[in-house]
Structure formats: C-alpha cells, structure tokens
C-alpha cells in the first residue's frame, strides 16, 4: 500500500519536477534547435512509457497485494500480448530513431559555404586560428608544432601568411554564417563545447576532428573543456564572442596576421633566451 | 576398464545435424554431449583467448593503417643472408614448419593417448615439446637479431615505431603461450609415462581424476598456438 503510493508519488513528482523545476537548458544560440526538438520528442515518447509502466506497477502492487485468500493466476505466456508489446515498442524506438538519424545527417554534412576555423587545445588553454582575408587556412602539421608556432603552420605556404592566430585570447565569430570548426590538440584529449551552441566534439592529438554550426545570437559565451584532460580540466575555459558582421570585420582588421606574429614571437623568444 | 567417463550416456543416435543441435541444447545435464568437462573448459578458454589475440592483431592493424610513417618491409627485415644470398623471410618460414611439425606430433600423441599407448604418447608429447622449444629458441634468435639491428619497442631505423612495438608484443605473447605449452607438455608427458592416467590419479590443479582426455585437452591448446601463428604469419610477416 505505502509502496504503491510512493511509486505514484515518485512518478508524478518526476513529471512535475520536469515541468516546474527551474533547471533547464540555456537558451540556444545556434542552428541546432533540431537537437532540442529531438530531445523534446524523446521526452514525450519515453515519458509516456515511464508513467504508464510505473502506474501499472503501482496499481498491481495495490490491487494484487497479498490478503487472506488471495490467489495468483496461473499464466505462463500470452503470445499475442507479447507480440503487441514488442511491436508497440519497436514503433516507439523507430519514432525516436528516425528524427535522430535525420538530424545526424545534417550534423555530419558541412554546408558548402561554411568558413573554416581551427581550435587548438592544450593543457589547459584554448588557441584559435582564423583563415584571414583569403578565407583559407594555411597548411599545417602536427610535427611542426613549437612554442613559437603553436599550430605548426607551414611558414612557406602563401595561404598561411594572412592566417590569424589567437593564443589565449577570445574567439570572435560573425553571426549567421555557417562555421566549420576544425579541432586539434597538442597533448591530450579535450572537448570543445559551448552549451549555447549545443554541439561538441573531442580534440584528439595527431588528428583533426570537426563539427559545424551557425551562430544565431550575438553575445559572449563560455567555452568549456568537456573531456577529462588532467588536473586542470575544470579550469580550461575560453570565450567566444558572436557579433554582427560589421563588428566582426572591425575586430578582424585589428588582428595581426601570422607572418607578423610569427616574426614577433621569434624575436621575443630570442631575446628572452639571451638574458 | 573401470570407468567410462568419456562415453556420455545420453547421446541419441537419432539426432544429427540441425536436429542434433536442437536436441543437444534442449536436453538435460550436458549441452555438449560426449565432451568431458576439461575439454569443454579448454574450448571456451580458447574462445576467450581468440578474442585476446584478435584484439592484439586488430590493434596492430589499426596502428599500421592509420600511421603516415613508412612501415618497414617485413620481407626484407626478416630476411637472412645464407651463402651470400639474401633469402626473404626464411627464418620465419622455418619456424612455421617447425610449429606445424609439432602440431602433427601432438595430433598423433592424442591418438595414441586414447589407445592407451603410454610410451608412444609420451614420446610424441616430448617430441612436440622439443619442437616447441626449438620454435621459442628461433624466436629468441630473431629477437636478438632485430635488437642488434636497432629495433626497439619504441623505434627502429626504418620507419614507423609501431613496427617494433607490435612485433615484440605479438610475437612475445605468442611465444609466452608456446612456452607455457612446452612446460605443460613435459608435465603431462611425465604423467603419461608414470601411468597416472591408467590409475586415474588425481591432478593437482584440477583435483579431479586424471584421464587420457587430458592429452587431448593439452593438444587443443597446442594446436591453438599453432593456429594463432597462422594468423600472425599472414598478417604480420606477409602483409
């Protein structure tokens, strides 16, 4: 009896908690509201199943509890019932899976016009590389990564000269344009995640991974590392500023190109080694 | 004969093929009719071991296929100079033949074991063990040669460092299996010779009565080691 009540209370409580608790996802700031929709669909299908099943259990616990003279019914199988339940569940699963796969197709297919940016992780900070005026990232390699050249950019590549390297600085992005984020790491696994964008992906040393999104809302967001990367994992933060195109262009024009930063850091490091 | 342990009592003649399959799985007592406990256990252990070697080989495949570095050519690396001529892979080929020979002697040992021919069984088992030891010896020679040429688990003069890593790891694990097999073969051969299995003397590890089926169980292990070598030969040396 108490158990039946408690089961019901937990079920109803869970549903109420879902609708009325203050804890929910942050407002979205990218095109991935499809993901949010899929989550909502999932909630409905599974929520209904949860309430029905636990409700049924609670009813049985109450209705068929042991009393004097209570006798259980003998019924080993019921083929029809089992088939119906299997079919209904399969339909439920299909209802979850279908939208999921459709959206995943979008997720892995980068639109043609997306501009590429590169993110480099290291213990425990973020650096970024933007393609510069020509809109193309210069060639780079993991073997060429040094302190002066954190992205291992190929210095002879003409397309690399105007690249913009942002070390331990905020990333700026124009709103409304699809961005393909190329992810690299110098040392261990990291994960680039901005909760408002809903999309995340690991950074793997010796590899380049990617995801894409279109920022839709102008604001400054936190970048968090979402893959355990050592003691400082929880301190590995960055910021991304999404701004409208004009503001972005202004910002962009104030950045120094790779050919200049590279020269400068080289001079600086030479100086410091002399001392 | 005092005890017919191997002859399981409920194998119906009528059931073969598929209906036998269904029958065996749906009757009582034993799913593998006719199969003694030790043998069943060895088969399942070998299945698990298959997954170990499978994972080793698959890891080797993965690192080899995903590296940008040049993979050293095994045909050259494992070549020997004999009579002023370079013969590719020759040592490995000889090792292969040695191991196969040992498999043959083992198979015969099992046969004579079931015929209770103590002497023949023991001699064949010892022969198997000696061939196995020879294999391990050649393996040691191979390792020494490569180490002298500068191959290390962490690098080698010719290319991808994973070459050395996977080579030492996979052949090392295989060699360990062979070595364990050799030791067990000697122990079992002694037991056979002493007549332990004729008097059903209890085994130390199993605390069960010893019977000639142990020879077959040991044989299964030994053939498996040979089997693994077939795959190593194909994927490591011939690729």
């Amino acid at each position: 009896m108490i158990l039946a009540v408690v089961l019901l209370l937990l079920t109803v409580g869970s549903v109420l908690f879902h609708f009325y608790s203050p804890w929910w996802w942050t407002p979205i700031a990218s095109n991935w509201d499809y993901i949010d929709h899929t989550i909502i669909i999932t909630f409905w299908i599974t929520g209904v199943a949860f309430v029905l099943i636990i409700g049924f259990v609670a009813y049985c616990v109450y209705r068929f509890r042991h009393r004097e003279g209570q006798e259980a019914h003998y019924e080993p199988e019921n083929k029809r019932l089992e088939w119906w339940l299997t079919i209904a569940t399969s339909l439920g699963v299909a209802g979850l899976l279908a939208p999921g796969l459709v959206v995943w197709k979008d997720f892995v297919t980068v639109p043609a016009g997306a501009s590429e940016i590169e993110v480099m992780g290291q213990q425990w900070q973020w650096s970024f590389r933007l393609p510069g005026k020509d809109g193309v990232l210069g060639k780079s390699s993991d073997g060429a990564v040094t302190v002066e050249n954190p992205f291992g950019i190929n210095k002879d590549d003409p397309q690399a000269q105007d690249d913009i390297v942002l070390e331990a600085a905020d990333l700026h992005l124009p709103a409304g344009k699809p961005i393909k984020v190329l992810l690299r790491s110098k040392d261990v696994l990291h994960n680039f995640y901005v909760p408002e964008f809903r999309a995340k992906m690991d950074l793997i040393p010796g590899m380049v991974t990617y995801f894409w999104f279109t920022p839709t809302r102008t604001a400054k967001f936190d970048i968090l590392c979402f893959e355990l990367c050592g003691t400082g994992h929880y301190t590995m933060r960055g910021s991304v500023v999404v701004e409208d195109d004009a503001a972005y262009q202004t910002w962009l024009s104030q950045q120094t190109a790779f050919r200049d930063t590279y020269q400068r850091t080289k001079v600086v490091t030479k100086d410091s080694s002399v001392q | 004969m005092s005890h017919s342990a191997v002859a399981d009592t409920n194998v119906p003649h009528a059931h073969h093929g598929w209906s036998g399959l269904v029958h065996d799985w749906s009757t009582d007592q034993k799913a593998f009719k006719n199969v003694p406990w030790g043998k069943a256990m060895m088969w399942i252990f070998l299945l698990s071991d298959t997954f170990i070697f499978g994972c080793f080989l698959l890891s080797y495949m993965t690192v080899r296929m995903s590296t940008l570095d040049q993979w050293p050519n095994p045909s050259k690396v494992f070549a020997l100079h004999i009579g002023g001529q370079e013969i590719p892979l020759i040592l490995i080929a000889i090792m292969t033949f040695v191991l196969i020979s040992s498999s043959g002697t083992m198979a015969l040992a099992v046969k004579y074991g079931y015929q209770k021919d103590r002497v023949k069984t023991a001699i064949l088992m010892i022969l198997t063990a000696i061939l196995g030891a020879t294999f391990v010896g050649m393996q040691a020679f191979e390792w020494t040669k490569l180490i002298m040429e500068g191959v290390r688990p962490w690098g080698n003069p010719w290319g991808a460092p994973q070459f050395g890593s996977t080579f030492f790891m996979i052949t090392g694990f295989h060699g360990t299996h062979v070595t364990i097999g050799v030791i067990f073969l000697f122990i079992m051969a002694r037991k056979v010779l002493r007549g332990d299995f004729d008097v059903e003397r209890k085994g130390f590890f199993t605390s069960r009565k010893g019977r000639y089926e142990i020879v077959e169980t040991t044989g299964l292990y030994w053939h498996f080691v040979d089997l693994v070598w077939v795959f190593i030969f194909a994927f490591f040396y011939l690729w």
Partner: protein
Amino acid sequence: MVDVTPSAVDYVAPAHEEDELYHPHSFLTKYVWSQDAKIIAIQYAGTATAIGLVALVLSWLMRLQLGFPDTFSFISPEAYYQFITVHGMIMVIYLLTALFLGGFGNYLIPLMVGARDMVFPYVNMLSYWVYLLAVLVLVASFFLPGGATGAGWTLYPPQAILNGTPGRDYGIILMLVSLIIFIIGFTMGGLNYVVTVLQARCRGMTLMRLPLSVWGIFVATILALLAFPALFVGCVMMLFDRILGTSFFMPRIVEFGEQLAYGGGSPILFQHLFWFFGHPEVYIVALPAFGIVSDLISTHARKNIFGYRMMVWAIVAIGGLSFVVWAHHMYVSGMNPYFGFFFATTTLIIAVPTAIKVYNWVLTLWRANIHLTVPMLFAIAFILTFVNGGITGLFLGNVVVDVPLSDTMFVVAHFHMVMGVAPLLVIFGAIYHWYPLITGRMYNNALGQFHFWVTFVGAYLIFFPMHYLGFVGVPRRYFEINDTTFVPANVHELNMFISVVALIVGFAQMVFLYNIISSIWYGKKAERNPWRATTLEWQTPEVPPGHGNWGKETPVVYRWAYDYSVPGVAQDYIPQNTPPDDVPMAKPHRLQPA
C-alpha cells in the same frame, strides 16, 4: 509449449557423476583455502563489499566537494580526480562484477543447476585469491608516491600516462596491473561458471528449466569472457606505452611546450578497445540483476514469471547485441562520423529486448499474490529505477541527443540510475532473499524495511534531479564549476541537496551491514524454505547446504522453476524436484491447463 508445462519430465537420463569431490580436512582447507563454491562465494562477496565500502566513502568525499566547494581544503583537484577514478573503477569492476559473478555466481550456480560444486574447484579457489591480489594492488596504489591514478575510470590515453594527471608515476601502472590480474582471476572463475552450467546440470535440468538467475549470470559470464580480452589488450598496450615508451596510443605530443618521444599512435584505438569491453561490461552487471530480480518477483508474487522463454531469449539477444553498440560512448570522440548511424541504430534496437523484460516483470505482477517482503520491495524498486535509467539511455543512444548531453551530469545520472542504483537494489534484495539459506537465520525485518526506504527513495532523490544538471550543461568530472554564462546560481543549491541525501543514503548502508552481521548470531532461526520457493537451492537436505550440496544423491528435476500457484494443487508452489506423482492435489483436477 515445450518446457513450461507443469507436467512431468520428458525423459530422465541415467545419472552420470563425473567424479567424487575432494574432501577438506582442516579448518584452513575448509574455510580459508576452501574449494567449496559456497565458501568462495562468501569470500568474494565479503571482499567485494569491503572494497565497495571504500568506493562508497570516496563518493561521500566527492559529494562533499561538489555540494560544498571551497569548504574542504583537504580535497584538492588531484585528490578529486583520484577519487572519481577509483570510485568508478571499484564500483563497476571490483564490486559489481565480482559480487554478481564471483559472489552470486559461485553460490547459486551449483545449487540451482543441481551440481555438487563447480567443475574445477581448485581453479575456482585460485580465482578468488587472484581477485584478492588484484584488489590489494589497487589499494596499494593509494599509498605510493603520487597516489592512485586520476585518469577517470575510462583511463583514456594520452592523458592517463602524462604529467598533467595525478598518479601518473605509479598509480596508473598499478591500476593497469590490477586490472590485468583481475582479468586473469576472473577468467579462471568464469570458465568454471560457464562449464558448470553447460556440462554439470543434474538429471532433468534442461537449459529451459534453469531459473532466470542462472541464465543471467551465465550469459553475463560469457560476455565477460569475450569482452575482458579487449580490456586486457588495451591495458597491456598502455602499460607498454607508459613503461617502455612504445607509441600504440600516443601520437606526436607537445606537453607543456616540450616535445615528447612519442609519435604516430592512435588514441582513439584505446577508446574502441575500452568500449568494446566497456559496453558489454555494463550488461555484465545488468544481466545477473535481470535474472535475479525475475526470480525474486516471481517467488514473492507467488506467480510464474510471465513469458519465460521470451525472457531467456531477451537475455541472449541483449548479450549478443551488446557487442555491436560500443561506440555509442564515442559519438563525440571524433571517430568516423558515419559510425553514428550504425551505432545509434544498434543501440536503440537493444531497447526492444530490454523493454520485453520490463513488460514481463510488470505483467508477472498482474493478478499475482504480492507479498511485500523486503526482497520484494527491492525488486519492485528496481523496476522503477531501471526503467527510469534505461529511458535516459535512449536519450544518449540517439546520437544527436547525445551531442549536447555527452560528458554532462546527465550521463552520470543515467549510469547511476541504471547501474549504480538498479542492480545494487537487486543485490540488496538478493542478499535479503538468500540470507536465510546462507546463514540459516532471518534478518531483522524492521531494519530491512528502514534500509529499503532510505536507500530507494534517497537514491532516486539523488540521481533523478541530477539529470537536469546535465540539461543545464554542468559537465561531469569537474572539480568545481565556478561562474559561467549558463549555470544559474541555484544549481549549487541542488548540488548541496544531492550531497546531503547522498550522505544520508550512505549511512543507511551501515544499518544494512549491522543487520546482516548481527543477525548471523541474533537473528531468529529461519525455516527451511521460508519463501516457499521452487528452485533447487532451497531443497537441499541440509540448510544451509552442506559440503557437496546434495547428500547422497543429486536431485532429479521434473519441472521448470516457476510452478507457483498451479491450479488445483494444494500448496502454492511445487519445487522443481517434486515428481509428478508427489504433487499434493487439492481436489481432483486436470494438472495440465488445456
């Protein structure tokens, strides 16, 4: 229907004993170096519980840090990461796997299949001692310079063996060695369990008459024998990377500005190996729970388990499928993105056989005669927590939904609900259920009830709200979250609440321990078969079962394990070994329903 009829056996083959047993002579061989599966089971369970308590204490420390950040100066970030790693590893492997398979497997398999013991008792004994060694090696890692590893229980390289991670010097080495030892020890035991079920059943015991407990443990053991190899290989390779400087998992790395000597390896390979083991592993701890809970429900509801054959096939199907879903842990790992389609599909397909199991448990309650004993309370609580946790699994399995949720507290909530709470509830239920058999005494019912209510409601209150932290975007494995643009202040209140409840639930476990320990001496004497169960373990000549289990003759089985409340029979259960002619009839009645 083939085997679910209440009628007589089809045929009884002649007895076939492989061998007589060894006979222990001294106290040492009887209780310490014992080869009796029942003693080994208790040794396994005791060790697992002891190390489980360590993990429990670690979880308190973690919760203290998360609930009250900046309060406890002795919890440094390094310590925190060591805590979560060892907590996770102990709970999954050294507690649940060892307890379900080594503990319940050893105790129940020989008894339930009607064997005298495991097929190779000596190897079985070794299995336990090797397991103990693995536990000791794990514990030792805390006391070496640098402490235990803090790499997370997933031990992902390169991070696990580089300087930025605590315990990189010795901790990680001991962790890997301990796992390797565990796997070797487990294999010895596991082979025994499998062969005993396959080859050492008693007369009349067909596979389709096995109690579902045995089925669950049996299939889980097979999964373990096939999945642990992948972990073994991963551990060996990582050990080489760490000690010998090989580069299996290590690409070119610049660590804190310094170029390391590694190059060309594939970090993602380790993840594949780990999860090829890891996913079957979660079913290794789930399937025994599925099996045992079926028996608890059926016994205490006095009703046959509904759809026995479907239940068996579902266990087998889940076991098979669990090998082709592993990369759902890697949706955002940067693997080949097209794998997402394959693994999302296989993952969601697993929900179907699992759902069938849930339905059958629930339908067993329909028109039953439910005795709300302590074991039954735990069993029903399992249904709720498992359905809840399983459903959140569907979120994560559906690849795009996993993208925002992966590595958030949502995942932590998912696996605690489905693994930390649900199977653990079954363990508690099972301990209460078989307590009279093992000790010959009853536990204290009031304390049992208390333990149940605090654990069940408490655990739900801990882990249900935690999902919503995940929605907010709170990451897992964060020492502290500090200020961000998206985490509102009230998240800290929720964290505090969770921590307080976790402490309460933790202390309730002390009541449980007190209960099961003190009842050994002070509990009232149990009846022979207090639950009036049908399965063989309750039908032994001595209770608790003696050495060799069965006295002179091993039992002969005539029926499936679920003949409860058969119409027309005088009592509401018929033990599996009751011959058709001995069934007490209430009134003249056709035994077989038409």
